[in-house]
């Protein structure tokens, strides 16, 4: 890969602090590098500049008036001030103007608690309303698309949604209709906001004008926390935040996941994710397997372990492309101890792919299985199953996805299934061990580009009795002596597998890290 020439760096001074940035970087981004968060509605680093909200205006030496910092490219020696009285008054003025026609819907608006207008009111405004005239009224609850709802009145006309559809998806469904304070977001009659990335418009909408239908009226965000993790929907490995209930007093939401939103990673998904991934949180809530109690699960594990040990080389261990590297490592270790085969197989058919984020491979960790030498196809797995006495199927719905494998599976006398959700495979099992969902474990997946990315369990999350982290169950099945820790498993793996050499939990934390090394 050829090196692009390094951009020329310039020094800019913001609020008395200097920072060195590439020439031409927007001043608003240079400020962010100094930890100075200039308020903004319309600016988004992944969208072209609009410059219409006027909220990001600051004082810049040698420039007239209050230039908007999103449209001010950094030049050598630029001096800017973001906290002067003039700037503060201006921000309060912009806020007041935005509130002139904004409906005070907070009590019924999903955005409450993560609304830029609310946040900036507290930070930059706090004025009493001087409005004594009618607000302009528009349509509310507009069914603008299959997954998004529009409230035209709440719109602050930042045009982020329009720019997203024009420049990211190129589908241009959204438009601004009319003029002046009768401006409103709309679609052409007979069309709807129906692309595979439509919910991103709700993410980037700074207010509750565009909201996600699936999340509508489900939970107040102050009862939720967010866990940084990776979407399990395909091999792209988009970085996401999963919102889950976590509240000391209102416990109704605890132990449940509510939604998935993209997390910024410029190397993988920028600020976006596809609409399909949005429903991945349901894996945490729905169709969960569970033993009646912790002791029951322990018993089942012990008895399964004994069966596997008895079968030795006549056992077969199958895992799926959704298992973490650590889980795959323990499956491999167990196979070594038993002297039997270990294989990883796909259980989801290839699906839709596009030029944006969607990849045909709908598993999050096929590459990990390949790096660990476990990847196999259905024919190989069927062959391995022939004549087996015990099979352990970990996180792969082979019965539901492949008739050939379903038949082969059914022929094995002892069929142990370790999974988190009910499936055709779990229903055809002789013993079911209830494992953890992707939100309840620490581990790594490798995306199609070879980026090793961390999935994680929220620290406060309690896995209910009757279920257990897969790693501990695998250890209990004989893969290791005693309880294991994910980072130790990973550290050992990094020694053994060339593609993971030099990596660790510490290095994979923020944004993932490229693996592959010599065999990338």
């Amino acid at each position, binding site marked *: 890969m050829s090196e692009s020439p390094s951009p020329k760096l310039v020094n800019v001074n913001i609020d008395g602090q200097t920072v060195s940035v590439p020439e031409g970087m927007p001043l608003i981004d240079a400020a962010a590098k100094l930890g100075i968060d200039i308020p903004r509605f319309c600016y988004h680093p992944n969208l072209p500049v609009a410059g219409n909200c006027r909220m990001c205006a600051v004082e810049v030496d040698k420039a007239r008036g209050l230039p908007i910092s999103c449209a001010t490219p950094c030049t050598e020696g630029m001096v800017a001030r973001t906290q002067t009285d003039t700037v503060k008054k201006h921000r309060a003025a912009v806020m007041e103007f935005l509130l002139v026609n904004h409906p005070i819907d907070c009590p019924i608006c999903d955005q409450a608690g993560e609304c830029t207008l609310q946040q900036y009111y507290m930070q930059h405004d706090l004025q009493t309303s001087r409005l004594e005239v009618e607000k302009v009224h528009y349509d509310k609850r507009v069914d603008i698309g299959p997954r998004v709802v529009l409230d035209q009145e709440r719109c602050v006309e930042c045009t982020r949604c329009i720019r997203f559809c*024009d420049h990211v998806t190129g*589908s*241009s*469904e*959204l*438009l*601004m*209709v*009319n*003029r002046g304070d009768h401006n409103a977001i*709309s*679609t*052409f*009659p*007979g*069309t709807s906001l129906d692309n595979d990335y439509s919910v991103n418009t709700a993410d980037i909408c700074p207010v509750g004008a565009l909201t996600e239908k699936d999340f509508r009226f489900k939970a107040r965000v102050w009862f939720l926390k967010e866990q940084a993790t990776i979407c399990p929907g395909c091999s792209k490995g988009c970085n996401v935040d999963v919102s889950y209930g976590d509240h000391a007093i209102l416990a109704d939401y605890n132990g449940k996941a509510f939604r998935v939103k993209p997390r910024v990673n410029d190397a993988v998904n920028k600020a976006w994710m596809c609409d399909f991934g949005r429903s991945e949180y349901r894996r945490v809530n729905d169709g969960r397997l569970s033993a009646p109690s912790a002791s029951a699960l322990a018993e089942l594990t012990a008895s399964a372990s004994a069966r596997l040990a008895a079968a030795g080389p006549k056992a077969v261990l199958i895992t799926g492309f959704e298992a973490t590297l650590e889980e795959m490592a323990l499956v491999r270790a167990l196979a070594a101890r038993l002297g039997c085969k270990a294989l990883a197989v796909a259980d989801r058919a290839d699906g839709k792919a596009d030029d944006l984020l969607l990849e045909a491979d709908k598993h999050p960790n096929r590459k990990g299985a390949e790096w660990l030498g476990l990847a196999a196809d259905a024919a190989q797995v069927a062959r391995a199953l022939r004549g087996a006495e015990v099979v352990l199927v970990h996180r792969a719905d082979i019965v539901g996805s492949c008739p050939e494998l379903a038949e082969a599976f059914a022929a094995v006398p002892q069929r142990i299934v370790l999974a988190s959700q009910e499936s055709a495979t779990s229903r055809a099992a002789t013993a079911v061990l209830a494992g953890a969902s992707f939100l309840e474990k620490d581990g790594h997946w490798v995306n199609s580009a070879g980026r090793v990315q961390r999935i994680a369990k929220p620290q406060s999350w309690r896995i209910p009795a009757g279920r257990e982290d897969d790693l501990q169950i695998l250890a209990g099945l004989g893969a290791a002596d005693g309880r294991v820790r994910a980072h130790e498993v990973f550290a050992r793996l990094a020694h053994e597998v060339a593609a993971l050499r030099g990596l660790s939990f510490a290095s994979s934390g923020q944004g993932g890290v490229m693996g592959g090394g010599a065999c990338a």
Partner: protein
Amino acid sequence: MSATTTLKLAPEREARIDDLQRRYPERRATLLHVLWEIQWQLGWIPEEWMVYAAARCGVPVAKVLGVVSFYTMFRRKPMGRYHIEVCRNITCHMLGARKIIEHVEKKFGVQEKEVSACGRWSFEEVECMGACSWAPMMTVNGAYHENLTLEKVDEILDGLK
């Protein structure tokens, strides 16, 4: 998603559009020309003709609606056979525009942007038309009539078939 259409304007209009699209650096920039040709031919711009315009100019159909709704002269519904516009801006206002507006509304029983029941008349208040020195003024189907009095207004309107 590109728009497609089977509609076509009258040949001389299509020829004018073709000519302009050859001379412009970008086809999309001819959108206002196309919208005018549609409105000149049909009197307004129906939705399927916005789709036509989108296809003709290679722009998303959403953009066409955004443009049509931005400009006051583009009509999204038909107006009367005679569309009257009376300027309401400052000099016309000082020189009696409001009386003319009331008079026209009463004469045809129409409110702003409404079409009369018989379909002959529609009416609209407009902003400054660049006729201040000859105020007050009105247009009938775009033709300027200036230095108006209520009598002149009646004379002009009664004279229309």
